[in-house]
């Protein structure tokens, strides 16, 4: 799958001018509300016509305004999941699920209903009406409906934004399964950093109708960019190693070393993504002794940048994995930090989602 987007449109009081591309996987459009993310989702689905630009999916030109090409939504085979579900109130859950598959019967690459129902855990809901479903159930049905049309690309526009935290936790594992089991390319629109870190492979940060940065998630999220309004953090893909039942701790292995975290419900061999925020990492020039912090990793300073009036941002190389730290400028001067300097990163806290992954 390849996706190339290069569009611009202006509405009163709002201008959108973005270009990005994606080789596949999950591409997150990330940014504040009103930044234009949902408009981009609408343009991809064909519900909004851009003033200028092109959209190419797998070599097929869906939009090219200068060539007068605009493929209407019903011929795009791009599945859409909306923030408000948009299930058809007059149809049962089963009829909702099969709605798109019915129109796609000639292009029969839609997955059988059974598989999708099992994947999303909605078997018990099939004969119910949408009005009787909870918010989380509605979104799972909406995802299933979009999958069953046999899309070549799935566009999810803030699918969890209308749900409370518990409902989000209920759906995120299904989205992870979807990503890992179907390999369906997705564009995931969100303003939630946690969702993006868990799901996305690539990140496109949108602000005021423009792309401010884009690239692989680990790289983009570790940039210190005071204008982006997002807090830098390292995103690590780790595997759960041994579990120390006596102390309730688990060892997580990654390219740059090991981390020890509370085991919770983690299982040996499980793979997950975790996030280490810059402000949760402190720096020591020598190996510290007599410290309660469990996670101390040797690293090398890659670059340093001012991250505010008093703060200094550091990018560290930890055996090939990028870590980020935010310390005061005073500390940076006192420790004599400079690129190339060997240091120890003291990780105060690691955030990841315990209910996440199987």
């Amino acid at each position: 799958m390849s996706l190339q987007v290069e569009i611009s449109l202006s509405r009163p009081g709002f201008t959108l001018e973005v270009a990005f591309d994606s080789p596949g996987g999950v591409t997150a459009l990330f940014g504040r509300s009103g930044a234009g993310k949902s408009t981009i989702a609408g343009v991809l689905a064909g519900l909004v016509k851009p003033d200028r630009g092109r959209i190419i999916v797998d070599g097929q030109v869906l939009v090219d305004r200068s060539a007068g090409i605009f493929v209407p939504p019903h011929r795009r085979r791009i599945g859409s999941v909306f923030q408000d579900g948009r299930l058809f109130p007059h149809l049962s859950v089963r009829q909702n699920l099969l709605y798109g598959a019915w129109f796609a019967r000639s292009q029969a690459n839609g997955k059988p209903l059974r598989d999708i129902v099992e994947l999303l855990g909605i078997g018990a809901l099939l004969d119910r009406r949408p009005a009787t479903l909870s918010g989380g159930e509605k979104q799972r049905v909406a995802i299933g409906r979009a999958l069953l049309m046999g899309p070549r690309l799935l566009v999810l526009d803030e699918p969890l934004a209308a749900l409370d935290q518990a409902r989000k936790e209920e759906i995120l594992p299904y989205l992870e399964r979807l990503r890992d089991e179907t390999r369906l390319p997705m564009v995931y629109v969100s303003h939630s950093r946690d969702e993006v870190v868990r799901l996305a492979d690539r990140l496109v940060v949108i602000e005021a109708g423009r792309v401010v940065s884009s690239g692989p998630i680990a790289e983009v999220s570790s940039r210190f960019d005071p204008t982006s309004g997002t807090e830098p953090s390292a995103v690590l893909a780790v595997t759960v190693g041994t579990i120390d039942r006596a102390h309730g701790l688990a060892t997580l292995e990654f390219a740059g070393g090991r981390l020890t975290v509370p085991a919770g419900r983690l299982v040996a061999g499980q793979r997950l993504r975790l996030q280490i925020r810059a402000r949760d990492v402190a720096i020591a020039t020598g190996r510290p002794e007599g410290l309660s912090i469990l996670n101390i990793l040797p690293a090398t300073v890659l670059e340093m940048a001012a991250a505010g009036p008093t703060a200094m941002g550091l990018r560290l190389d930890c055996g090939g994995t990028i870590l980020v730290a935010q310390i005061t400028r005073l500390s940076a001067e006192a420790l004599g930090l400079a690129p190339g300097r060997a240091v120890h990163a003291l990780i105060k806290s690691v955030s990841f989602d315990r209910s996440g992954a199987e």
Partner: protein
Amino acid sequence: MPFLTPLEAEAFSLSLRIGVWSAVLSLPPALAVAWVLARGRFRGRTLLSAIVHLPLVLPPVVTGYALLLLFGRHGPIGAWLDSWFGFTFAFRWTGAALAAGVMGFPLVVRALQLSIEAVEPGLEQAASTLGARPIMVFLTVTLPLIVPGLLAGLLLGFAKSLGEFGATITFVSNIPGETRTLPIAIYTLLQVPGTDAAVLRLSALSVAVSVVAVFGSELVARRLRRRTAGA
């Protein structure tokens, strides 16, 4: 009906027939116009809306006269229909149904337009992303969701037709058994002294039919609404 004279019974059944035909036949064009007014975004929208609502504000006599000019035996449309299909509106019950349909048209359009506007456009968008062509979006999403509005429109058209007087008498005159509907029969009886009892009977009949129609459709609409709400 034992309590009605044959002439009165004739007016009653004629009114029902004209009411049903005018309501049913005006529904499809009213639906098309309502959809265009509710969902269309084009230049002449306000103009179209004004034209559709014209029968509501014009004196019914003027509407009837316009129908006579257009659909009369020598009118451009009337003559064409007569020569090609042998079909006439002039001084026939079909003409009364046409007059009633035209007079009720704005009300029917209004009811349908409101119910189409109440359909969340997001649902129609979702249907199109799922592969439905615009016509299929309308048939599988919009139409099922406006069934209560369709019923309301049907009823309004029927009720308006039962009460139609001015345009009908102007266009197709007052012919017993052909164009003498309930209101025209009442009007005719009022011209003759000593017919108070007959006038009262027909008036009561008009009230009864209208009440039954309103309650019946309200009942059905409520049941349908409950079903789509899924409670």
